């Protein structure tokens, strides 16, 4: 998925996701990552994290409760202003609302200083996100100063960054953790000093005033899978393209899809890892076509490589089967131009606006939900035009919620 920085070889930088996780997902992580049993089994059994469709394999990543809850939330109607998903919240009651009066700045939020420890801007999703966040800040004159430290994807550095920021005179600290587990201590330390807002990926502590994120991986994976289930006849051949093995949040997407495919009796003929590299993805799909003759559907755990997959079919002179992608502009473009049968679950970049809004709420003493779960839109034939924006760059994200913001579209590279 687009949050991936996957190096194909050593010497290149990151090889993983700075990925999202709903609070519950974070819990799931606790369950999966730090639970010893499956992990140790794994260590002995190299085949384990292979895409084998065996049950115990899934049990390692799959958490029925989270799964059900996430599918639940997809149906729930969000509270909050219509048409402003970044201010909406799903089932805030579950985590309860937090009274933030203790953080309220006396004399109002005028001249507030916000600080942001960013995991990095190592991929288009994060770049679009950061632009969006900065635009949001620009909207609020009351924010006198907005300091961003970029960890360039280094946990070690982000820990130092958080320490440094909580040392400075920030009124509130926004954190987009590079890694769930490893930043917990640093965040806890910061919680003691200033109000902390965590978003995108979670941390294994609830000391943050609020944790902001969309619904999560199961919902994403299921949405895409269900679409194929509807479009493809029983027994149809499915190719599943995944970014990289053993990355928690991607596993949730895949495990959700796996269930759906099995239930519907679709035949998953290939499950391959693309490293998020289009040319590799294209090669894989071409090979798949060559070997299986006909492919009836393509499932993706992320958008980065979906266009390459589409082209693989074109170059092979085959019709493009139902395919899933993400709200990345190049895919939406292909969808429009080639009139694909497609669906694009989004992991919305508009969530980068919410932390700023939340921070101001907190500093005003207004209450915020402990777990601020944002809607997770899915781009379909019907709502296509809401997300497809003429003239935006190929690596732009439709669900940026940035259309109204100052500087749009220029600052996002559009014309």
């Amino acid at each position, binding site marked *: 998925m687009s949050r991936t920085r996957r190096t194909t*070889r050593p*010497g*290149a930088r990151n090889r993983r996701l700075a990925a999202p996780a709903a609070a519950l997902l974070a819990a799931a992580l606790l369950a999966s990552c730090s639970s010893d049993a499956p992990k140790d089994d794994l260590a002995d059994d190299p085949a384990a994290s292979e895409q084998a469709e065996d049950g115990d394999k899934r049990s390692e990543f799959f958490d029925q409760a989270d799964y059900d809850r996430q599918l639940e939330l997809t149906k729930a109607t969000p509270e909050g202003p219509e048409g402003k998903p970044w201010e909406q919240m799903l089932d805030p009651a579950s985590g309860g609302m937090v009274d933030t009066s203790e953080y309220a700045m006396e004399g109002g939020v005028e001249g507030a200083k916000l600080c942001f420890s960013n995991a990095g801007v190592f991929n288009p999703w994060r770049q679009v996100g950061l632009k969006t966040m900065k635009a949001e800040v620009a909207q609020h004159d009351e924010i006198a100063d907005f300091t961003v430290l970029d960890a360039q994807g280094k946990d070690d550095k982000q820990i130092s960054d958080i320490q440094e920021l909580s040392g400075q005179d920030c009124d509130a600290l926004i954190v987009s953790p590079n890694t769930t587990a490893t930043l917990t201590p640093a965040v806890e330390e910061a919680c003691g000093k200033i109000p902390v807002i965590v978003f995108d990926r979670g941390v294994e502590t609830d000391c943050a005033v609020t944790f902001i994120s969309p619904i999560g991986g199961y919902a994403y994976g299921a949405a895409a899978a269900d679409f194929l289930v509807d479009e493809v006849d029983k027994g149809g051949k499915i190719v599943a393209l*995944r970014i990289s093995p053993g990355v928690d949040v991607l596993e949730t997407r895949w495990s959700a899809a796996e269930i759906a495919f099995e239930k519907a009796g679709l035949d998953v003929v290939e499950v391959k890892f693309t490293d998020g*590299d289009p*040319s590799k993805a294209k*090669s894989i799909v071409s090979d798949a076509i060559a*070997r299986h003759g006909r492919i009836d559907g393509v499932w993706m755990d992320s958008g980065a490589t979906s266009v390459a997959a589409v082209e693989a079919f074109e170059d092979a002179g085959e019709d493009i089967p139902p395919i899933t992608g993400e709200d990345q502009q*190049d895919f939406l473009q292909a969808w429009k131009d080639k009139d694909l049968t497609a669906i694009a679950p989004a992991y919305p970049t508009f969530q980068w606006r919410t932390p700023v809004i939340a921070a101001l709420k907190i500093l005003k003493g207004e209450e915020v939900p402990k777990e601020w779960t944002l809607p997770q839109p899915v781009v379909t034939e019907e709502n296509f035009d809401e997300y497809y924006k003429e003239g935006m760059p*190929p690596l732009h994200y439709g669900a940026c919620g940035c259309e109204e913001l100052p500087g749009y579209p220029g600052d996002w590279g559009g014309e």
Partner: protein
Amino acid sequence: MTTTTPSATTTVFAGVGRRLGTGAPVYVLLAVLLAALAITDPGFYEPDSFLAFIKRAAPLVILAAGQYMVIVSGGFDLSVGAVVTAGVVAGAEFYGSYPDAPWLLVTAGLLLAGAIVGLVNGLISTVLLVPSFITTLGMMLILEGAVFYWTGGSPQGVLPESFRSFGRGEAGGWLPWAVLACLAVGAIAVWLMRSDFGRTLLATGDNERAAALAGVRVPRVRTLAFVLSGTAAALAAVLVAGFSGVSAQAGRGLEFEAITAVVLGGVILGGGRGSVVAAMAGAFSLQALFTLLNLQGVSGALESTVQGFIVIAAVGLGAADFSRLRRRRSQPSEGKSSS
């Protein structure tokens, strides 16, 4: 005087060694891999899919050819991966501002830019005497940083079909342009290495001082090697961009793949020995290996492990043959040196 027994025989073995040590292993490896491919996927040798394979291999093969020039002259070029990434991104960025620029112009522009990067690498290494490993390592950081700094992290433009067809489309509907490019580069490389330039390049990599005293303009020759490598990288960028479109990580790790390919081809790091054909064969072997692992359905995760083992083994095999012969013949020849 007569050529004495030791030198006589050792030359025989040296000859064998030269062939065994540098050439043979890679061709054997390639043959084995291709055979394995044929077994795993009977359809592999149908014209289309085989052409598709070559098409996919083309960028790496071209990179290897360029890398060979640098390595054989006694250097390293770690910047090629960055050149590819930069090339793809810059291309897209350029089209962002001038959507209907003629593809030929943009391609030429990229090639020129690649050549300039190579020129800078070369000048820094030869004039400032910075080891090329460091020069190109620095260049790698600079390019990656610069291009993303310029594009604010992600390119703004879309690559039009006209531009992409070179890496994506076919000539006459069946022969991929990439394959043609591959063949062309191969032909040029072979011709170059037989030309005066090629021979002096080898001599320079072998003994820089002797070359200099023979009137070889060493800095120029070595710089030219970097220019070729840079240009090849840019060409690879054009092909990659064509094949799979805009990507912010198009060239990631390619420098290591290219060097691995060249070494697989039996070219000695340090210069002075090795054939460009073998280097390109090394690239094909590597690509074949990737495809094979892919077809075999080796766990995506384990792929790199298998790859690691095979690379070490293959190079080890070549080195073993060669080094044994080197040790043997080194003895009498040392003997000579002192009598």
